[in-house]
């Protein structure tokens, strides 16, 4: 059995939904659109019921996506019962929707929520009288305190059964004549199983959707459309009022009359508590520092504290990797078994994102808190005027902040938050520019490049990259508005400002965790799939047989040398074959990871004892102590280890060099050289498509360390900074600047791209976002590098000029007024 929850926004639909289903729900999108669809299940009188939470709408016209979706479910889903959640403290306005639901002929129950709020405002509501007046069951509720559920269930059972209700029929006075004529004409069309009175009213209102539907019926349909037009024209002539205005007016008059009889309220007093608070929060000057403080606190709590927290959660992720590593086939001498490399690559890719969970948890909980408090609409109110100038919307603030307006966000939750932007044009513009923000994963590359090439101007360079993105995003949003988005639907900024509520701990926590879970699910599946593809692209076809033979020969030589050295000692027996040498390396790496971070002496001794017990010979090689012969072997082993490391890195580099991705990087070099990118940079950027974290990791693999002198930690070679500076000798700050800006504008990672697809609702927009961002990034990088070289600018000069140009572009585009938007 299907039931639906309908109601205006802020009527408490979600609370009623949770009350009925016990929050056993899943959230999805309605097919094809970005409107959220919540579905839950519960048992009613032995029947299992599927409850759909319709999007909150003030009305049921066809002007917005939400209203069209809600209407569609009501008409085509034929729910057994529709529960209309209404706010008792604002009954008059909520009845407006109730009347429209009654006209649609759906079996209705009214859940009169927020009785407590009404009481606080000294309103006494006679719900029994209301039920008699409306002719439908009315169940008073206090959703937040979970009271009134029994009454609601009883009313639902009654409504689902035999319908005894005779819902109120609104009297439209002089328009009734026209309604009657149209109803009769509609009756002549067979197979029209929609309520005729509702259709007649919608036709008189000239509702586009209904007109389309009727015109599907061929000639009789067209006749009806002509008739409707004629009738509303003559109505207008007679009353000097258009039919749609008249219908609205009658609904309000009826609602007012009913509310007057059923609600005993004192005259509306002066400003409420919320109004008083809003005098400060929405103040034209004070409002902005408060807004800044709220946003700063969000950064501070999530980025700073969240980062602190990752120090505690990272060991868990590291443990997963360790466990996987020890369960997989052991490392080879030159290259590792395919299965091992693949799985560890996969684990590393996913771990890189799971590492952000503490940050996201704090972020989402904080946002849920602001939402419940009611601050979000205030934020939109304060920034709407500014953002409008660039074709965005007051509600674009949150997505941009989440994406990382300053530094450190993530495009995935940012794009997900675009759902709240009610205006389609502004929503698409926001979705398209959010990925330009500085997500957390872009930061390591910035730090790397600034550290190498702008070392003397770190502060300025960081400020530049942190603020340039929002400047470019504003300009881009405006230009998109003037071009590709020109014909998209817009909505006037007319929004309800809900009163402040005090958030509950459980509600806030539950929503925060829910959203983190959605993030985890989306990320892990997408990233897992993409990282496997990337792995293949970076590994195949692998080494040529000659290279392999060459490396094997070198490996053998090194091994033989080691074995010969060991042979002269009693330890020789333990390492007399390549297999045993591999075991020794495995032993060493396990020992190292066991000892990592252990500072306590007695604990360290315990670990030593365990390993000594496992294999005393191997342990002697690692820790020769004062034993002369063991020392000889240990020295030989160090030499072998160095040789092995060189071979492994050479192989790794050679594999990437020969791989499909490496080939692509080289193939692009003739073009990208004008932006200053070498093929290695190209490969790093291509790998960033999977996740931006990959850039620095790939560069790390590409700029292989030359033989290191540091014997204790051969894996942690000299810093990537110096490696890069040494190996890309021709690189200048101008190269670095072009690369940083390209990184900022470059298409989002795969995960964000998928979310763009989901939120924009089509593959077309996803492709568009990929293409335009790549194009924009290329043009900017090209301008910086080629233009800068031509003019002989230094990196810092180019930076200053570019910043000035971006500020100018923001001011100029802000002044462009689009052709007057239809409102």
């Amino acid at each position, binding site marked *: 059995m299907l039931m639906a929850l309908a109601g205006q926004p802020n009527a408490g639909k979600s609370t009623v939904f949770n009350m009925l289903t016990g929050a056993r729900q899943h959230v999805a999108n309605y097919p094809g659109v970005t409107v959220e669809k919540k579905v839950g299940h519960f048992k009613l009188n032995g029947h299992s019921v599927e409850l759909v939470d319709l999007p909150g*709408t*003030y*009305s049921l*016209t066809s*002007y917005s996506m939400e209203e069209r979706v809600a209407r569609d479910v009501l008409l085509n889903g034929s729910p057994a019962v529709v529960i209309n959640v209404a706010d008792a*403290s*604002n009954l*008059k*306005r909520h009845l*407006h*929707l109730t009347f429209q639901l009654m006209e649609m002929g759906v079996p209705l129950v009214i859940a009169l929520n927020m009785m407590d709020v009404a009481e606080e*405002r000294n309103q006494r509501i006679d719900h029994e009288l209301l039920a008699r007046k409306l002719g439908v069951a009315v169940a008073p509720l206090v959703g937040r305190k979970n009271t009134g559920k029994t009454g609601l269930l009883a009313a639902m059972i009654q409504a689902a059964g035999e319908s005894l209700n005779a819902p109120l029929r609104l009297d439209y006075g002089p328009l009734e004549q026209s309604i009657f004529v149209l109803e009769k004409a509609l009756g002549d069309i067979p197979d029209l199983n929609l309520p005729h009175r509702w259709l007649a009213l919608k036709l008189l209102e000239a509702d586009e959707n209904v007109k389309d539907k009727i015109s599907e019926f061929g000639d009789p349909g067209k006749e009806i459309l002509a008739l409707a037009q004629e009738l509303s024209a003559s109505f207008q002539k007679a009353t000097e009022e258009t039919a*749609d*205005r008249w219908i*609205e*007016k009658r609904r*309000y008059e009826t609602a007012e009359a009913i509310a007057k009889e059923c609600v005993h309220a004192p005259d*509306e007093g002066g*400003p409420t508590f*919320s*109004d008083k608070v*809003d*005098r400060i929060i*929405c*103040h*034209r000057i004070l409002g902005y520092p408060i807004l800044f403080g709220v946003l700063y606190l969000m950064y501070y709590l999530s980025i700073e504290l969240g980062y602190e927290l990752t120090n505690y959660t990272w060991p868990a992720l590291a443990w997963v990797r360790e466990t996987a590593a020890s369960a997989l086939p052991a490392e080879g001498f030159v290259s590792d078994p395919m299965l091992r490399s693949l799985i560890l690559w996969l684990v590393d890719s996913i771990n890189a994102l799971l590492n952000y969970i503490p940050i996201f948890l704090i972020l989402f909980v904080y946002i849920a808190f602001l939402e419940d408090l009611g601050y979000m*609409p205030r934020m*939109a*109110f*304060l920034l*709407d*005027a*500014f953002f*409008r*100038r660039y074709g965005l919307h*007051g509600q674009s603030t949150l997505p941009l902040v989440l994406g990382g307006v300053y530094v450190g966000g993530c495009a995935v939750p940012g794009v997900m938050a675009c759902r709240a932007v009610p205006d389609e044009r502004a929503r698409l513009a926001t979705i398209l520019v959010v990925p330009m923000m500085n997500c957390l994963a872009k930061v390591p590359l910035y730090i790397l490049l600034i550290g190498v090439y702008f070392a003397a101007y770190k502060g300025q360079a960081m400020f530049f990259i942190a603020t340039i993105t929002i400047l470019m995003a504003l300009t881009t949003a405006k230009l998109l508005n003037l071009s590709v988005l020109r014909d998209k639907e817009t*909505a*006037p*900024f*007319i*929004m*309800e*400002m*809900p*009163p402040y509520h005090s958030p509950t701990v459980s509600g806030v926590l539950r929503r925060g965790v829910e959203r983190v879970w959605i993030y985890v699910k989306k990320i892990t599946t997408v990233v897992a799939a993409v990282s496997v593809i990337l792995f293949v692209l970076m590994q195949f076809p692998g080494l040529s047989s000659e290279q392999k033979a060459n490396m094997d020969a070198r490996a053998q030589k090194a091994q033989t040398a080691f074995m010969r050295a060991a042979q002269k000692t009693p330890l020789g027996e333990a390492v007399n074959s390549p297999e045993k040498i591999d075991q020794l390396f495995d032993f060493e790496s396990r020992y190292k990871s066991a000892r990592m971070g252990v500072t306590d002496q007695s604990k360290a001794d315990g670990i030593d004892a365990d390993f000594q017990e496992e294999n005393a010979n191997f342990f002697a090689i690692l820790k020769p102590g004062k034993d002369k012969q063991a020392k000889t072997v240990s020295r030989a082993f160090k030499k072998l280890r160095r040789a092995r490391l060189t071979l492994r890195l050479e192989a790794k580099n050679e594999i990437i060099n020969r791989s499909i991705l490496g080939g692509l990087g080289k193939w692009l070099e003739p073009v990208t050289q004008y932006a200053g990118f070498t093929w290695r940079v190209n490969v790093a950027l291509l790998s960033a498509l999977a996740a931006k974290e990959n850039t620095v990791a790939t560069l790390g693999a590409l700029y292989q360390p030359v033989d290191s002198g540091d014997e204790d930690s051969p894996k942690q070679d000299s810093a990537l900074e110096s490696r890069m500076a040494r190996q890309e000798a021709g690189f200048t700050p101008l190269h670095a600047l072009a690369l940083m800006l390209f990184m900022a504008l470059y298409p989002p990672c795969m995960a964000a791209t998928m979310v763009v697809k989901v939120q924009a609702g089509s593959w077309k927009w996803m492709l568009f976002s990929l293409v335009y961002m790549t194009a924009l990034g290329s043009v900017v990088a090209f301008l910086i590098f080629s233009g800068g070289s031509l003019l002989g600018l230094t990196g810092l000069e180019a930076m200053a000029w570019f910043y000035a140009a971006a500020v100018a572009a923001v001011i100029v585009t*802000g*002044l462009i*007024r689009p052709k007057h938007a*239809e*409102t």
Partner: protein
Amino acid sequence: MTRWIRRWRGGRGPQERMEAPSAEGLRAASRLSNLDVGQEAEVFGIDAGRKARCRLASLGLIPGSRLRVVANCRYGPMLLSLGETRLMVERGVAAKVLVRQ
């Protein structure tokens, strides 16, 4: 220069054109966007497009409703109070709502 500054600030200033209100309305009429914080007024005409009008109507702002201005900062949207409802209305739309006090 001042014209450019005004354009930047988004206000269209006092030269805003009035759209043919009825003779009787003209006497007492004022634009909603010109009201100050705390002022109360009654709506008597909405000259906005269909979409904006429908949206206003579904939130309770129709000819005949009484409202009070909670915030109006001369640029950006206005905050209105209509009975129990608080409403944000963008300046462009508010300029098309005719009110009398």
